[in-house]
């Protein structure tokens, strides 16, 4: 479509080539360290998010293996009890805050602008700022953990255990402030995604022609906007201030309430699960559409189910608190709402099954991961329906049954689709095809390893094994199931190694993917692989839900955007009619400096509240530099 080899009507090959060269100059990133820190193109920032998140996945995975080694046999002494507490806290924290959310944000930062047919996100410098906040937060947590201030009160840091009385040291403070870093990052991406999707779509891409993946990210971004502030209140305002300046949010002796912390945390924490899961649903739709070579069955039903999931997700949080003795009428409401999620998920599963059934399915590695998702996620969903019933939940609360359930829904519901997406879009991001055979091998290792690890945990939980214990005595009879689980964990590790080897070796191969190796329907397959910084020489005009499957004779492209500055087109919210042009800012070092200044203050704030003023002053200087206009300030038409 944007191929200059066949220039649009009325343009010569030479003028199209000149446009391409001018765009390449305008959108080029500066060289050197300064240039690297100042990058504002979404492809570079998206790649950084993804690579950083996978490094944290590796760290979280190593922590998981250490726990499994400790639990492999009764009364093992591989990890001391205190160390075990730190390891499971770091595992959960890393996976939720430093891997799962950022990797979904990174994929969206990379894919969404191309899929809606524009050249960058709406706020490129904010994008750069958000990445550094995320990276600094992750480094802060691990540096503090390795220097002796590891958090050890679990990934949700319940009070009073995490309060000033029972968790001395700086571990919990570090945990709380790491949340602030990563939530700021997630909120930055959410705002960018919302504005990019609502205001910068290709002309003609009305909301009912929005690709399903973009829908899923739009819904996820709205959920981030409404959910993430709650966790900042819980961790930064309630927990950290109680610990550092003596407020009484969670102190029952002065009228505070530990239960209030749970309410606020889970008001974020439950939507969080869907913030990770909803983008994965978008991956599934995109992979299935390309590989079953038909549009997704029941487009409207899938979109409406995802919107409904987004709403219901905010009415479920109390099902994490069934064991706290809340009024029965409240519990009944949250049971019903929790069961309702099965309906919206079920609608989507059936739409995908219908798509596969009526399409011509191609069994790629990515499709293997989709099948893995369906199998594992449905099992996790079934235990979810069981746990939503209060009497059963009271029996299995805080046992390995719950551990099994949430690993089935999170690994099955998010990690398998993510791995599928990685195999699907690897060719687009790197320009090289990933090895399909190794991809399928890694799938089978991960799939078998996953079930061997986590299925026995259901039984262990029903037999009474509680979460977060560092060991157990031999006469309880949990030894063999735990040993099997540990063996499965190593199978997962093997699958992970195959996956990494596959990615690294495929990356060294020749650039051979071409624009559209899968004959897919969405716009990211219309640009070269890897995409140039400007994505499209001539941004597309969209006339159907599956633009690349539209008759080429009917295709239209946008001309008249200037090539000597970073110009994009702003279109209407619902119908995407062209409204005006819009100049995106170029590279700048200030977002990095602002993030660094805020980082200094936030790191200090775990020791004293006054460091917030340092963060404000340094961040303020950074923001003024960021907004200070470069000449010329006037805009020529």
């Amino acid at each position, binding site marked *: 479509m944007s191929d200059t*080899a*066949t220039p*649009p*009507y*009325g*343009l010569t090959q030479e003028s199209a080539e000149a446009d391409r060269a001018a765009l390449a100059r305008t959108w080029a990133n500066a060289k050197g360290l300064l240039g690297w820190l100042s990058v504002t193109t979404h492809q570079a920032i998206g790649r950084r998010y993804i690579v950083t998140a996978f490094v944290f996945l590796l760290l979280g995975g190593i922590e998981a293996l250490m726990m499994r080694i400790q639990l492999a046999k009764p009364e093992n002494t591989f990890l001391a009890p205190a160390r075990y507490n730190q390891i499971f806290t770091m595992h959960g924290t890393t996976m939720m805050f430093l891997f799962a959310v950022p990797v979904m944000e990174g994929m969206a930062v990379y894919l969404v602008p191309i899929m809606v047919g524009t050249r960058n996100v709406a*706020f490129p410098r*904010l994008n750069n700022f958000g990445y550094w906040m995320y990276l600094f937060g992750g480094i802060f947590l691990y540096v503090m953990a390795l220097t002796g201030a590891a958090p050890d009160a679990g990934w949700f840091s319940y009070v009073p255990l995490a309060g000033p009385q029972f968790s001395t040291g700086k571990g919990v403070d570090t945990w709380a402030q790491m949340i602030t870093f990563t939530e700021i990052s997630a*909120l930055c991406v*959410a*705002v960018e995604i*919302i*504005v990019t999707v609502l*205001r*910068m779509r290709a*002309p003609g891409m009305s909301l009912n022609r929005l690709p399903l993946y973009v829908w899923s990210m739009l819904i996820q971004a709205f959920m981030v*906007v*409404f959910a*993430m502030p709650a966790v*900042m*209140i819980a961790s930064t*305002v309630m927990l950290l*201030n109680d610990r550092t*300046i003596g*407020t*009484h949010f969670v102190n029952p002796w*002065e*009228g*505070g*309430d530990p239960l*209030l912390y749970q*309410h*606020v945390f889970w*008001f974020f924490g439950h939507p969080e699960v869907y913030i990770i899961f909803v983008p994965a649903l978008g991956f599934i739709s995109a992979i299935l559409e390309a590989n079953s070579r038909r549009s997704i069955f029941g487009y409207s039903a899938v979109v409406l189910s995802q919107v409904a999931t987004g709403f219901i997700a905010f009415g479920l949080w109390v099902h994490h608190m069934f064991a706290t003795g809340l009024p029965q009428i409240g519990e009944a409401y949250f049971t019903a709402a929790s069961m309702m999620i099965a309906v919206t998920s079920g609608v989507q599963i059936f739409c995908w099954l219908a798509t596969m059934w009526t399409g011509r399915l191609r069994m790629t590695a990515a499709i293997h991961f989709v099948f893995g998702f369906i199998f594992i996620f449905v099992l996790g969903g079934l235990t979810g329906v069981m746990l939503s019933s209060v009497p059963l939940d009271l029996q299995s609360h805080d046992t390995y049954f719950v551990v099994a359930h949430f690993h089935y829904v999170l690994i099955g519901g998010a990690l398998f689709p993510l791995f599928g997406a990685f195999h699907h879009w690897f060719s687009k991001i790197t320009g090289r095809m990933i090895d399909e055979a190794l991809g399928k091998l890694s799938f089978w290792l991960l799939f078998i390893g996953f079930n061997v690890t986590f299925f026995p945990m259901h039984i262990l939980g029903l037999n009474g094994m509680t979460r977060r214990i560092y060991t157990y005595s031999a006469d309880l009879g949990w030894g063999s199931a735990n040993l099997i689980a540990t063996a499965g964990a190593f199978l997962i590790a093997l699958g992970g190694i195959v996956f990494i080897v596959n990615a690294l070796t495929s990356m060294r191969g020749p650039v051979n993917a071409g624009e559209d190796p899968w004959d897919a329907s969405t716009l990211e397959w219309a640009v070269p692989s890897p995409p140039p910084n400007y994505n499209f020489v*001539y941004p597309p*005009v969209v006339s159907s839900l599956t633009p690349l499957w539209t008759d*080429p*004779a009917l*295709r*239209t492209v*946008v*001309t*008249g*955007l*200037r090539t000597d500055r970073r110009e994009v*087109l*702003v279109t209407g919210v619902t119908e995407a009619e*062209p409204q*005006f*042009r*819009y*100049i995106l800012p170029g590279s700048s070092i200030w977002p990095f400096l602002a993030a660094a200044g805020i980082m200094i203050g936030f790191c200090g704030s775990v020791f004293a509240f006054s460091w917030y003023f340092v963060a*404000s002053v340094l961040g*303020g200087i950074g923001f003024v530099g960021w907004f200070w*206009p470069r*000449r010329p*300030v*006037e*805009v020529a*038409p």
Partner: protein
Amino acid sequence: MTSARTLDVSDLPPYEISNRAPLWWGQLFMAIIEGCLFCMLLAMYFYARLSVDVWPPPGVPPLKTLMPTLALIPLILSAGGSYIASEGAKKANRRLMLQGLCANIALAAVFLILRFIEWRTFNFSWQSDIHGTFVWSILFLHTFDVIADLLMTAVLIVLLAVGRYGPKQRAGVHVDSVLWYFLVLIWFPLYVAIYWGPHLMRAQ
């Protein structure tokens, strides 16, 4: 392959300063995020209030309402300054923008001074009890946001005064007003809850 047809957009304006600008949308969502923080604090405030019989706790007199009510006058008027500035931004009228922003910052400063004077009459801190914790948290967060917005306004005044501005900075003036309207509007429920709430709920 056939040549694609074209849609020429070179006649469209290169920017627009209105509620359709992407920057306006970004600012809107940033205000929503900030609004979620305040709503959560407010919900928590009532959660804490409803779990005790006496509020504020014994020994702490209910907050006086005169001073914060008087302070509403400059606050509401300051939004008028923002409005004038944003209309000036749309019309590219430098004088209107400067007048509006200066009125905004001066009236907001009066509001803040009244607030700081009032704080000196408080006989409790955030460490006293849960009531003090909430009142100070709400006041701190709102004051922090107000000061941050005023600094942004001051930067815009400097840029306008030295003439170093173009459409992007005018768009900045326009969205600055969005943030200010938000900070004025969100203050009303917070003000009613922390100043009038103890009186109204005691009367029952």
